């Protein structure tokens, strides 16, 4: 696994390049991104992205050849935008494999402001919670016959929305409250410069990741 700081930089670079590159350039970005995932030893993830990207591009090419009407063109536009965003998502997916503690201390080392770090820490902590809580609630909604999965319920979308959101809010507000109470008894807002037990340092293998900087910028000329 590469240094999280380089991964983060590459993610930013890829995100901004996506605006400027041509369609072929975007494809090159995606290939680089998949190679990047592969080089870190995430074979499964890389394979999944590869297959997904292949099918996605094929679909896109197919749509280009069809002489379409308004709706089709709108769909095409959406897909084209997505195809530009995909490389960034692929980079992000490998960054997501870094444990939060290591990620945060890496970001801290490149002087990301404390307020942003704290927000990020909370967000990272909360996404998995939201997902698992929401799954539990949907399961119970399913038992009661009011879940999103049952088609007949979509006749009353507002009510359905209420049944999905209200318990989730009730539950997460309480969890968030407990969590921030616990965090504040553990010095989360102490006015010290945070230290880290992670040894964040540049290793030889990381120079491979640095190569990607040039390769990524190179896509501008494709």
């Amino acid at each position: 696994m590469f240094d999280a700081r380089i991964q983060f930089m590459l993610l930013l670079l890829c995100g901004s390049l996506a605006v400027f590159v041509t369609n072929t350039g975007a494809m090159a970005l995606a290939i680089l991104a998949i190679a990047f995932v592969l080089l870190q030893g995430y074979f499964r993830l890389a394979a999944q992205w590869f297959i997904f990207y292949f099918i996605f591009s094929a679909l896109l090419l197919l749509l280009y050849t069809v002489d379409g009407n308004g709706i089709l063109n709108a769909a095409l536009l959406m897909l084209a935008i997505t195809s530009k965003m995909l490389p960034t998502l692929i980079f992000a997916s490998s960054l997501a494999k870094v444990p939060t503690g290591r990620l945060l201390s890496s970001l801290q080392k490149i002087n990301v402001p404390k307020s942003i770090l704290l927000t990020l820490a909370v967000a990272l902590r909360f996404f998995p919670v939201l997902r698992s809580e929401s799954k539990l609630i949907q399961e119970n909604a399913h038992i009661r016959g009011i879940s999103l999965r049952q088609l007949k319920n979509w006749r009353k979308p507002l009510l359905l929305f209420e049944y999905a959101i209200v318990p989730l809010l009730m539950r997460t507000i309480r969890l968030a409250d407990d969590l921030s109470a616990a965090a504040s008894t553990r010095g989360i807002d102490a006015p010290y410069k945070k230290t880290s037990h992670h040894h964040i340092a540049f290793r030889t293998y990381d120079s491979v990741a640095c190569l990607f900087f040039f390769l990524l910028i190179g896509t501008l000329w494709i």
Partner: protein
Amino acid sequence: MISLQDIAFITPQGEQLLKDLSLHVTTGECVVITGPSGSGKTTLGRILNGLIPHYYEGKLVGKINIAGHDPKTTPLWQLSQHIASVFQDPKSQFFTSITEDELVFEMENYGIESKQINSRLEHILNTTGLQVLRHQPLDYLSSGQKQQVAIAATQLIQPELFIMDEPSANLDLHATAELEKVLLQLKAQSKTMVIIEHRLHYLMNIADRILYMKNGRIEQSFTPEELKILPNEVLTSLGLRSPILEHGHLHITEYDDKPLFAIDKITIQYKKHAKPILNHFTLTLPKGQVTALIGHNGAGKTTLARNLTGLIKERSGTIKLNAEALPANKRMTKVWFVMQDTVYQLFTDSVWHEILLTHPEETEKAERILQQLQLLHLKDRHPATLSGGEKQRLVLAVGLMQNATLFILDEPTSGLDGFNLTRVANLITTLAKNNCHVLVITHDPELVASCCHRIVRLHEGQIAEQHVLEAITYTDIIKMMQ
């Protein structure tokens, strides 16, 4: 170490939670605070760890000195360097994703040098036996391991005082025994501890004093020896759990023996797993009976419950209701599952709407059920404003509304005092008498003894032991649950 003099606390809503409360704890002492729900124990704990007045607002009067500081004028992060806080639910106190990150979290916040962080980390990993869990994601740990990590995490900052709010609430007997060892270690290091708790048995070798709180006051004080010889009637009238694990008596009610549900050779296997969770599992659940389902984490209790509810399909085998096969998609209305945390099961804005949600026509029946479960007077209240016990009854009421005949209750007594334990036991008995079967997943021997007819222990997807309660003693139950 702690000196509270004439404390009173009033919430912003004007509710007086504590009054005329004084408490003095010397260095190295271990004080247990117990008492019925709503007696102000948690509020007292929050004053001791500084969350009141810093995090929870309200009017706090009286003289306070904790570890040499006045919490009213000292910022919380400064207090926290002397006070370790452990909470009920480890899920809501972890801030990172991996054991070792969690252990060092607090030190990093205080800017302690990385060299020192690492040496303290190694030390704690070796003395607590957590070395094996070092790189484990916290999500994968059992409740007991989580609580061990939570306690170890507070120790690295080397605090003098530990405040724990029901640390055993989510633990089974085995994990509680482990918790006892950790606390004994802390006691051997002459740390000062204040432990708020309903379950008293595991604290008898640790506590120096047990304080009984009621209505926002400390009403009585016992030594462990005094508490142990209190007659049962006195314990019951105080609403206390038994201070001796092995002391308890079986309460056996009469029951029918007509089969209601028959689980016949059920096999359940998840796609990615090599071994089935349940393998040719067979069990009969008769009408009017209560069965306790016990066993360690991963024994298959939850999987069985989810299968009975119809959330997971069986690979092979059948489930029969009154001798008629009942496929998974038909089971949802016949089997009703009450989760430990009922928040997930309530969806609407009032008790009345909740019970009528899927049966808007049947108002008479709804009223009868609410009456039976003593909820009718709360008809217009928002479910979120109900007490824990009331929510539990409301979820049961919804099940009765659906004409469910099998009720599964998951840990219905975790974190409950003696009064509420009796109340839940009575409720279960009533439910079974309605021609239902009640299956209780529990690690609470007092609950098993007070309302169950049978006890079934699962181990690796098989029934390891099965007894009728008439045939065994209370001590046997404890042995089965350890």
